[in-house]
């Protein structure tokens, strides 16, 4: 059998190809075909085998994910099973776990509770507290209660959105910082208040905004 030196033989292929991901494998097939006008049979068989192994693994991961979701949802539901009107409390538990209500979880919940998905979404979208989008890694929340409003929370929001380049309710492109407003956090004595990653800062001035953003970015870098 005449094997071109640049085409990996089956012996070497087994060692090398295992490191290739799906796209690289297909790429390799295409390149080989371009170069030689055909694909050696042992190469194509090896690639097929590797791909099926990878696919099987993906299926297993998917299945595991599904069963994790199912197990989590079952856990939440069983905790509240006996209670009437438990939907909102279960949604609170889910949001506490994920930071938002993922669609797959909502679908699983619908199956588990025997409640139509539409009814679950009806509740989620009615209440401000429930989120459908994953939150950013860090959150800056500006209190927009009346006391804070009078003392300039609007200016803080403007300053934040111009510095971060996002509007309220949005997350930066790197999914790092989420900017939001909240109705009132009940700290009216220290208005205007801003909550940075769960820590409340009072009497915030627009000049201090850059410092808060920098502290988050610094945190991010030190983690990285």
């Amino acid at each position, binding site marked *: 059998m005449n094997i071109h030196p640049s085409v990996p033989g089956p012996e070497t292929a087994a060692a090398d190809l295992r490191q290739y991901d799906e796209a690289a494998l297909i790429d390799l097939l295409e390149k080989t075909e371009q170069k030689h006008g055909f694909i050696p049979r042992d190469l194509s068989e090896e690639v097929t085998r590797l791909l099926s192994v990878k696919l099987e693994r993906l299926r297993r991961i998917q299945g595991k994910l599904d069963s994790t979701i199912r197990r989590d949802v079952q856990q939440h539901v069983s905790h509240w099973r006996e209670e009437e009107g438990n939907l909102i409390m279960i949604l*609170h538990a889910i949001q506490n776990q994920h930071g938002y209500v993922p669609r797959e979880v909502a679908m699983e919940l619908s199956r588990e509770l025997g409640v139509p998905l539409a009814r679950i979404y009806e509740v989620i979208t009615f209440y401000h507290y429930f989120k459908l989008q994953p939150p950013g890694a860090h959150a800056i929340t500006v209190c927009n209660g009346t006391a804070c409003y009078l003392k300039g929370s609007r200016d803080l929001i403007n300053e934040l959105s111009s510095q971060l380049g996002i509007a309220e309710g949005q997350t930066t492109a790197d999914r790092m910082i989420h900017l939001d407003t909240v109705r009132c956090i009940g700290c009216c004595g*220290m208005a205007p208040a801003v909550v940075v990653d769960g820590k409340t800062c009072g009497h915030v001035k627009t000049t201090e905004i850059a410092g808060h953003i920098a502290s988050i970015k610094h945190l991010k870098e030190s983690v990285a």
Partner: protein
Amino acid sequence: MNTLSRTDLEALAAKPEGDPPEWIRVQLDTGGIAAGAETIFTALEHERADRRLTIPLLRTGSVGYSFADPVVEVQAAGMPRVHYGCVTPEIAARILGEHIGEHRLIDDHIIATRRRGLTLDAPVTHILVKDTSPEAGNKTGFFQFSLAEELKRRGLAERVQVVRALDLGIYDEGAVVQLLPSGVTYTNVLAPDVARIVAESVEAGKVLDDLLWKTPDKQVRIVLRNCGNIDPDSIDDYLRRAQGYQGLHRVLFKLSPEAVIAEMKASALRGRGGAGFPTWLKWQLTRAQPAAQHYVICNGDEGDPGAFMDRSVLESDPHAVLEGMMIAAYAMGASMGYFYIRAEYPRAVERIQRALDQAREAGLLGANILGSGFSFDAKIRLGAGAFVCGEETALIASIEGRRGSPSPRPPYPSVRGLWGMPTAINNVETLACIPAILLKGGAWFAGYGTEKSKGTKVFAVTGKVRNAQLVEVPIGTTLREIIYEVCGGVLDGKELKAVQTGGPSGGVIPRQHLDAPVSYESLQQLGSIMGSGGMLVMDKDDSMVEVTKFFLRFCVDESCGKCAPCRIGGYQLLQVLDRISRGRGTAGDVPLIQRICLTMQKASLCGLGQTAPNPVLSTLRYFGEEYQAFIEGGPSYARKMNKATPTAATSTKVSATP
């Protein structure tokens, strides 16, 4: 904690425990923690260990001095009991070193807002001094110096210390001097008086009548009675030091449900959530409805932005709210209760949950409580950020796990409420009053307040006010007294423009009506409502059109969309207001606003839509000329106005009050 029995409670009542002689209390409520009270607590712990002291370090809720968070209260042997405000870790170290160690008070941090003495019943050990003149070219230092010099001259410097105070609860009365521990307070003190004060009061123990401040403290604390005094996480503290569950004891063993309702009738307590419906009547209607199950709900969905009374009470005195709920349940024959609390108040939820667990463990919740045959249990349900859920029927829908859409009344919840059963919904503040009423009697409670509105009301005074704080005053106290005498007037000495009460469903009260007594009726006459107790002070820099837009936008965002007048009317109203505030309004806009408002008030399904026009109508009524100015001035005027409002956040000047 072991299960309590009836006799245990009786023994506790016979022997209430006093305060231990020495302690430091750190006020750890949401506001305090946000200001760094946790850090202060650890700093105190470390410092105490370093100095090998044994003084107990206690956690407590908030007494309400939000302007001075974090607040620490100190009681040391042979020293007056004082609150320190704006505490930093450095001050915390000095509290242990100087206050506890050397028996010296610390300058510039003492709050002695509510201490008023008329007789010198004990020798003076400390003198607090503060210059309260508005222009304050600040003479506080001068008076401190001259008092100290005078004391030195008379050889008293060893015995008496002169301290600059942070706040004495007296404003615009010149130099104020307070003698501790008696609390005798002199106002408008001038330089020549210093010698007299030292010679006659400190040395001879005589009160100088011409300088004496005789106005008693305006506040009466019933709802806030335990806030800042007990550990909210300890049922033991509540039982031993706050006559905890004694009201329940009296109800269970001495009174029939009818007698409880009669006592409530005598107290004339009205719902503190805003509408002011008589509590006893609500209970009686619920009780009279035959059903297999009755429910009682505590409405802790404090949605009004700018109000934090309910949060404070839930966080600082959770057992009192629970006890109130149990008494309500007994009177109505309910065996199940729900706390509906905003999810935005995690600490309140945590403390109520702990209170429930502790009460259950102590046998105060569950079957056959204290052997009385009365069974009751309670659970928490979280709100999820919907203002409309403060409305009774929407709140019930939310507890049932549905969208919080209100439904038409009647039937009222007292007839068909939670899961179709008769339900009474009471506000946090209402429930917190109840144990005190049952303990001291309805007539005692009715002794406060006005002809038609009895008792006291808690207000959260915020906005452009010098000392933003929680205030509890008898109903009928005037706005001027609350804002100027208790809270120190407008921030930076500016001119007050209006006071907004009742949150987004309330209205504004202009300066000329400041002397109106605050009661359900009088505020309604002025076009506002008492509401849950938020009180926002606005100064002359605040544009009424902008503020109205803010409130209206809130209501439009919160409208559930079920009924057209609220959904469409609110949006249209906002469009018109927006047009006006950009200087594009026309002469026909004001009548149009009035027409839309009327439609919303008459045709909306629930309180949200019916009251959403309130801020618009009341600002139109009192500040119509501002709307006119925007309409006549056109876009250039609007641009000028929108630019010209500096706010605290943008001003570079550091405000005078910390």
